[in-house]
Each structure stands twice: as C-alpha cells, then as structure tokens.
C-alpha cells in the first residue's frame, strides 16, 4: 500500500498519468515477505542490460539520459531494498526472457544492438507486456513476465527525474523558492517543476 502511495505521490507530483496501473496493482498487494538477503540480484551482464534499457526509456536528448544519471544501479538498489522477493524473482525472470528473445530475434545480445534496434526491441517488449497483461493470470508465463517492463520503466522514471541531472536539467528545480506565485507568467522554454519528494499539494492537507 505504502509503495503504491509513494509512487502514486510521485505520479501526482510529476503530473499524473506516468505510472502503470499494473505496477500499482502488484505493489498494492502489500506483500511483506523478506527481501533477498544481500545476495547479488543480477550478473554484471544483466546489470548492463538494465542500465541500457533505462537509457532507452529515458535517453539523452537536450539533457543527459538515464545512464548518465546512474539509473541502472538505482533500479537494482531499489529492487533489493524496497521490493519483496517474489517481485524480485519475477523481475529477474522477465529480464531473462527479454534477453533471450532479443538474442533469438537479432542473433546478438541487447547490448550489441544498434540504437535503432534497441528501440525496436523495447517497443516489442512494451507491446508484449500489454498483451501479457490482457492474458491476465491465465497464462503462467505471462503472469511472470508482465511485471518486468512496468517496474523497469517506473523505476527509470522515478530514478531519473529525482536525480540531480533529471531534476535540474530535464526539469526545473529550486531547493528554496522563498515565495509563492500562483499566477506566474510562463517563460520561454520553461521546464516543468521537478517533484521534491515532499508532500505534494494533493496530500499536504491532512493534520
């Protein structure tokens, strides 16, 4: 529940519509099983794939991308610390499945693909995830693999836009605004305000 709320809060702060309903529903299960004990979740190669995948989700544009913001390591750390073991396992299985299907289709691994093919592969992954979700829980393979991309994507968005690079370059961030102006004029090229991980307007109101 809390995780759902926390991510939801981020979605609210960042304007909503960002996070997948699927991720929210799995995380809503309030599973309290123990996190995997300090063992390494991923091999070095798997970690590189996660880092690369994050950089396809949030690439370098006029501002640096997910890789430069250290999002790959962030995803693994978050999975280790904040997700129950069964979700970690589903994520790992989904990663393996993704990796294998890329190898089958392109005869090389994801890391070696051209930028264009990487985008094509992630587009396929995205489409497959949507199909898996439509299959519901009937197909046991789909049930496992459908968690991978939504979590990778959500953690990429969270990790990137709350990173120093993401918050200050891809969005706008002021640590101490010092005043409030509710009818400020838009400036040319004005970026959206980055979330501050505080209590957003929607939930600052309880006492």
């Amino acid at each position, binding site marked *: 529940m809390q995780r759902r709320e926390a991510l939801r809060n981020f979605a609210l702060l960042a304007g909503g519509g960002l996070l997948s309903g699927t991720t929210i529903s799995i995380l809503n299960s309030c599973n309290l099983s123990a996190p995997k004990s300090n063992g390494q979740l991923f091999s070095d190669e798997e970690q590189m794939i996660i880092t690369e995948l994050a950089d396809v989700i949030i690439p370098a544009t006029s501002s640096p991308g997910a890789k430069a913001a250290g999002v790959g390591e962030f995803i693994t750390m978050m999975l280790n*610390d904040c997700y129950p073991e069964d979700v970690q396992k589903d994520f790992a299985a989904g990663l393996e499945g993704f990796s294998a299907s890329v190898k089958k289709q392109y005869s090389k691994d994801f890391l070696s693909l051209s930028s264009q093919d990487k985008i094509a592969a992630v587009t396929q992954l995205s489409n497959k995830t949507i199909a898996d979700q439509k299959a519901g829980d009937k197909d046991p393979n789909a049930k496992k693999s459908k968690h991978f991309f939504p979590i990778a994507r959500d953690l990429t968005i969270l990790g990137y836009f709350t990173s120093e690079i993401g918050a200050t370059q891809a969005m706008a961030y002021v640590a*101490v605004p010092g005043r409030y102006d509710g009818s400020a004029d838009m400036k040319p090229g004005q970026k959206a305000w980055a979330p501050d991980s*505080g209590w957003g*307007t929607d939930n600052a109101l*309880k006492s």
Partner: protein
Amino acid sequence: MNLNTEADKQNTYDAIVIGSGISGGWAAKELTEKGMKVLMLERGQNIEHIKDYTKATLAPWQLKHRNNLTEEQRKAHPVQSRDYPYQEANETWWVNDIECPYTEIKPFDWFRGYHVGGRSLMWGRQSYRFSDINFEDNLKDGHGVDWPVRYKEVAPWYDYAETFAGVNGQAENWPTLPDGKFLPPMELNFIEKTVKQHVEEHYKRTRIITIGRSANLTQDHNGRTQCQYRDRCSRGCPFGAYFSTQSATLPAAVKTGNLTLRPFSIVNHIIYDKDSKKATGVFVIDAETNKTMEFYAKIIFVNASTLGTAFILLNSTSPEFPNGLGNNESGRVGRNLMDHHFRCGARGESDDFQDKYVYGRRPNGVYVPRYQNIGGDKRDFLRGFGYQGGGGRGNMGGLEKVAEYAFGADFKEAIGTPGKWSMSLGGFGEMLPNFDNRVYIDNSKKDKWGQPVLAVDCTYGDNEAKMRKAMMDDAAEMLEIAGLKNVSTFDAGCTPGMAIHEMGTACMGNDPKTSVLNKWNQLHEVKNVFVTDGSFMNSTACQNPSLTYMAFTARACDYAVNELKKQNI
C-alpha cells in the same frame, strides 16, 4: 524515612504534563508561564529543534530511496506504512508497530509518533475554528453528549492560540467557520482563483472557496522565520516556519526556567489517593532501561493523544476506580471514539491558461467550509463536510495522449514540459459520535514493556456513507460549473484512523453520569486531573481539530492554576 522524603522531593513538581505533542506542549507553556514547576513526560526520544531535522535540507537525489520505504521499514511498521505519511524523509518519527501493538476489533489505522513534539512535527497544519453550529449539533440531533461550552466562551482562547501559533488565512465571515487572528493569507493560484470565482457566482455565495488556514508563517512571527515555500514540513522546518512543539511552545516553556522535560518516560498509570480524593502523581516506566519510578504533582494534565490518554485512564485502576480513573459514574472513558472520513471527491482539468504557471511549493491548499444542512441546504444525512484541495499544473505538455508504457525521447521531453492545469476537491466529513465506537484494555497482548494494549472497536456508519456520495457529487458539480473538463469522481475508501484525527474517549459535559470531563476539561471525579488532547472532543465537526485542542488547553490551564491558587484543588 529521610531518604524517602528526599526522593519524593526530587520527584515532586507543581504540575505534570503527560505528552509533548500539540496539546502537551501548550500545557507546558501555559503552566510554566504561570509560574508552575512543570515536569513534561514524553514516552519516546528527544528531537531537538533544527539540529535533529536531519533530512530537512536534502534534495530528492540525496534521499537514497527517493522517499520510498524499504521492506525492512515496512516490516517494522505494518500499520504506519498503510498510508503515505510515513516516508523515508521522516521515517524515524513513526512508532515501531511491533513494539507497540494494539488490537483491531475492526480495522483502525493508528498513525502515531513517539518522540518529543509528537505529531506536531508531522501534522498537516490546517487550523480551523469550530462554530456554534458545531457546538450545538449534538444537542440538536441527539447524537453524542451536548458540548458544555459554546463558541463565545472559546473564542478568546482561539484568539490567544492563533496569535501565538501563527495561523495564516483569509477572513470570510462564514457561519460555520469563524474568522480568526490571521497572518496574511497564502495565495490562491490561477486555476483556484478561476474555480472560486465561478463557484461563488453560481451559488450566489452560499458556497465559498477560500485559501486554507494553516499554521505556517506568512511573515516573521515571534522570532520565527516565515515560510520558504519548500513544502517539506513533515521533515521538520529549519526556519521554524510552522507551528510545532519544538518551534513554538517548547522554547516558550524552557525560557521560563520552570520546565523539566523527561523523554523515554512511559506513563503506565496515574496514582490515586483515596484519602485526598486526588491524583498524587504518575507511575512511569523508563522506555530505555525498563526501570520504574514515580513522580508527584498537585495537578496532572493528560495529553498523551486521544488513544494514549484513554489507555492511561483505563489502566489507572484502584479499589476506588476499578474501571479506570474518573470512570465510575459515566463509564464513558474509551467511548465515542471518532475520526473524520475523507479520501473521496472529484478532480478535473483545463486546457486554458497555458501562459500561466506557479512558482514555489505552497504547503497549503484551498478550503471549502461546510455549507450543507445550513440555511436552505437540506440533505439526507446529518451535519456535513468541508473540502480541502488544490490546483496546479502537471506535465506531459506537447503530448495529446500518453501511450500505454510510452518511453523514449518524446516521452522524456513531455515529462519535462508543463501540461494542463488541474484541480481536485477532497471531502473531509464529520463522523457522528456513537457510544458503541470504543477502546478498551486488551490484557491478552503485551507491548515491549509488558503493558497490556488497547483494543479498538470503531466503524463508520450509514450517515458517513450517505455523506460520501454527496462529497463526490457536489465536488464534481462545482468543478463542472467552473468549466473544468474531464471531471471525474473518486472514492479511495477510508478506515477510521486514516484521517489521523482521532477524537473522543473522554467527552465533556455538565452531567457526571454521561460525561468524563466537566466544561473545564477537568475529570468530574478527580478534580486535579485535566484532559486537553483530542480525547475531550464531543463531536468532530468537519474541521481539522488541532487548533481547538490548543484553545481548550490554554483555557484549562488558566482555570487549573486559578483553582489551585484558590485551593479548590
């Protein structure tokens, strides 16, 4: 004999205040300023103003989990992690649920922090007066016990509390929401102003939208610095810009030289003396060492929070009070537990005003004071609700529709681009007092210190269910009238406790047969014991209650010291 006398002397004060949250801090301030030597007992750790706000100035990227909880934190806090307030940025300020269990006869979310300052550090700071409509509702519809006071008697104490605490707001001359001694209001943003104008015109000002009244300083006040619009209040404010025990009442009490503060002091029970018919002191367990000790005083203020206070009273049994202190004639200690109900309303968006944006993070929203069941407005439920909400501008500018699982360069740029304005209104509804909603001692379970625990048996009723429908429908109607698009209603469900406005369990009244406290927050049956936290509330109204605790606490302290001087207690 000498030794005992010496020990007693060292442990003897004029007054003991149990608890250091919003009302306990006020009691300590008022009593010490009136020259009393006060011992304030706090069951948890000390938190020093500014110095211990260790996460107050961290940027998002300096919070390892970006304000999310770890599985470890969730395991130790299965209750606290049920909703958003417990976060990485304030995680040390919430109770360890495993060490401090309670029994949920029906689901009840008990959010609490055991430390100096209590929930005054994490509160939402919304500060509203009750009106005579609220003080009269119990009498009018027969639910709950009639309040033994009316607005006129409390008004000067509201003045007093606001003047010290620093509450910003806009005077509105609205019948259910009396105006106060306000600091300048915070500013409504563009969409809020627009919606306000349409709504007030359409309903001919039988409904209003005003800026929230919050205990954040909009100008420097009593040596404290004004709000910097960071919206990180719950981490503790290094500017002291919102009211808390640490920023306001504690320094005032310390300044008198009359205050002793003892953290890690769990009050297990209040000691009663049958000969003097008074409480003589409290029995304390040191939370760190498990050592037990007694402290003595002429008067005792119980400010342990609604449920904490109910526990202490119920656990203070003696041959004279077998069912708990002050609980003989009425049997109402623990009864009429209430909370607000919320988490439903509506939201909508606008395609207009693309040339406007906001600057700064305002720790406050808008407020729609209760307009139901007053004047010509009649409903199929009793009493009413207010709305809290706010508008803002999201992102996703430049994208018409966000594809499911969108990613890539365009998606990234859209996240960084201001999007549509939107606004939401969420209802805060009154919960009727109900004798059957109660807490009692559960001896089958023990906490970390071997104390029995509280059982909570509390549920919302039909009146609240009917009200929730109106909370959604009215909000949607107002947003539509204001011209917003894609208006949708929501009801995220609500469990008692979630609003963190627990009230009741030791209600006030003129008749000792039906009330625990008299009109001065004094136990009918033990005259030197006062209860001024949420326990005393006879009804919840729909306003956030903390300001009312402050006002009644100051009033009760004034009365208690006068009575003491007159040797009446």
